[in-house]
């Protein structure tokens, strides 16, 4: 499949939306365990809102993904491919169907545990326990996506593990930037004297996990991509390579924005006292919000590129096929 027809575009968008929503649900629990603090009074509301958005979208897009696979697997026109007989054949008789069965169970776990965990009183033992459970189940749902794409390929366990790790890390950064941006906006709107220091502390925690994530994403990204590309020339001469290059370019733009946040904006934010309300911190915070917003938009573009990459024939196979012809 190497042409961008309507079906490919729909499928690529569906994959991107499903991956994005699963990653977002996991990001909420990662944020809950490692970044947000129990006394952040805005956090439970934000977490609830994000989960109420992410979980239904994950369910719907997962169903559309399954339908798209049923059409492409059968090779039949959509009207015939969507017959009950064909759908059950995909569900019962293919490895993709078995994977979706497992993922449906995991999703059910997420849908039950996630809202309860977030609704409990912050800091309570039950809340902490369920939040950890929520993180584990949502992370499993994310990691299982590795079996649905090119992660399967080569029958190499290490490639699969690397792909799963890449997905899990991307829930921390860049997807975790969304809860961060929302919490930052809430802090800014606060009247409390502590808002600057709260914003600074939050930013410091996010920067620490983002830095580690970027390093790990780069390493796992290279390990994942190389077997599918095979040569530097294939990066330019095949559609797969070109989309991958675009993804890499966007990724580095996001790192550049993150670098500005870390090296310039953070040191200029007031963090020593609680009463600095001058124009500088406000400007710095506006700039920071703008940068994070831009990173999120670029992150969505990366997600679309990833959705498309899963549909395209890997560069190494494209070249192999043309070599045979």
């Amino acid at each position: 499949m190497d042409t961008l027809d309507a079906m490919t575009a729909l499928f690529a968008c569906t994959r991107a939306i499903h991956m994005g929503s699963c990653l977002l649900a996991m990001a909420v629990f990662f944020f809950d365990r490692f970044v947000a603090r129990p006394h952040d009074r805005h956090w439970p509301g934000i977490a609830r809102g994000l989960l109420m958005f992410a979980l239904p979208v994950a369910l719907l897009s997962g169903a559309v993904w399954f339908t798209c696979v049923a059409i492409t697997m059968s090779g039949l026109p959509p009207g015939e491919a969507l017959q009950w007989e064909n759908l059950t054949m995909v569900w019962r008789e293919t490895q993709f169907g078995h994977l979706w069965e497992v993922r449906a169970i995991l999703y059910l776990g997420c849908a039950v545990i996630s809202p309860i965990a977030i609704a409990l009183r912050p800091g309570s033992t039950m809340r902490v326990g369920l939040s950890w459970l929520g993180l584990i189940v949502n992370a499993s749902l994310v990691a299982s996506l590795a079996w649905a794409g090119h992660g399967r390929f080569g029958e190499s366990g290490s490639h699969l593990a690397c792909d799963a790790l890449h997905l899990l890390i991307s829930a921390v950064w860049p997807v975790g930037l969304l809860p961060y941006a929302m919490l930052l906006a809430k802090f800014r709107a606060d009247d409390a004297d502590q808002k600057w220091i709260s914003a600074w502390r939050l930013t410091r925690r996010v920067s620490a996990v983002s830095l580690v994530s970027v390093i790990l994403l780069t390493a796992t990204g290279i390990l994942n991509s190389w077997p599918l590309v095979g040569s530097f020339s294939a990066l330019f001469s095949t559609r797969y390579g070109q989309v991958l290059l675009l993804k890499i370019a966007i990724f580095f733009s996001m790192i550049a924005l993150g670098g500005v946040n870390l090296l310039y904006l953070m040191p200029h934010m007031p963090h020593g006292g609680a009463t600095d309300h001058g124009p500088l911190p406000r400007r710095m915070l506006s700039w920071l919000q703008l940068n994070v917003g831009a990173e999120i938009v670029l992150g969505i573009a990366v997600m679309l590129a990833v959705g498309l990459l899963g549909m395209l024939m890997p560069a190494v196979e494209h070249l192999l096929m043309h070599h045979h012809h």
Partner: protein
Amino acid sequence: MKTLQSPFAFMRFTLALILALAGIASAHAFVDHADPKVGAQIDAAPADVKIWFTQQIEPAFSKIRVFDAEGRQIDNKDCRQDKDDKKLLIVSLPKLPAGTYKVEWRVVSIDTHHTSGDFKFTIKP
């Protein structure tokens, strides 16, 4: 052992190491080899057509069909995956007379991508 004298050399070494560890593999299923071989001219009629693919395949959506020179499907329509080798697809044939036969295949690999193709073989008179 030669030392890595500059950061640039170290980076090149690291990149080369990562790329070597990563290896190269494939995602779509292509024909690895077949029996009868692609384009083969054989003396005795084969009992079946076997195709080994480069990837594991989904038997529910994978098939081989064999046609004679007039375009009639002449295989026994019992295409199946081998029990032990998940990359091998087999279809049995009736006793075939001399002639040229076309083998058409369409398979779906376990990562859901589909591929298709065809080849011919000839049974000598």
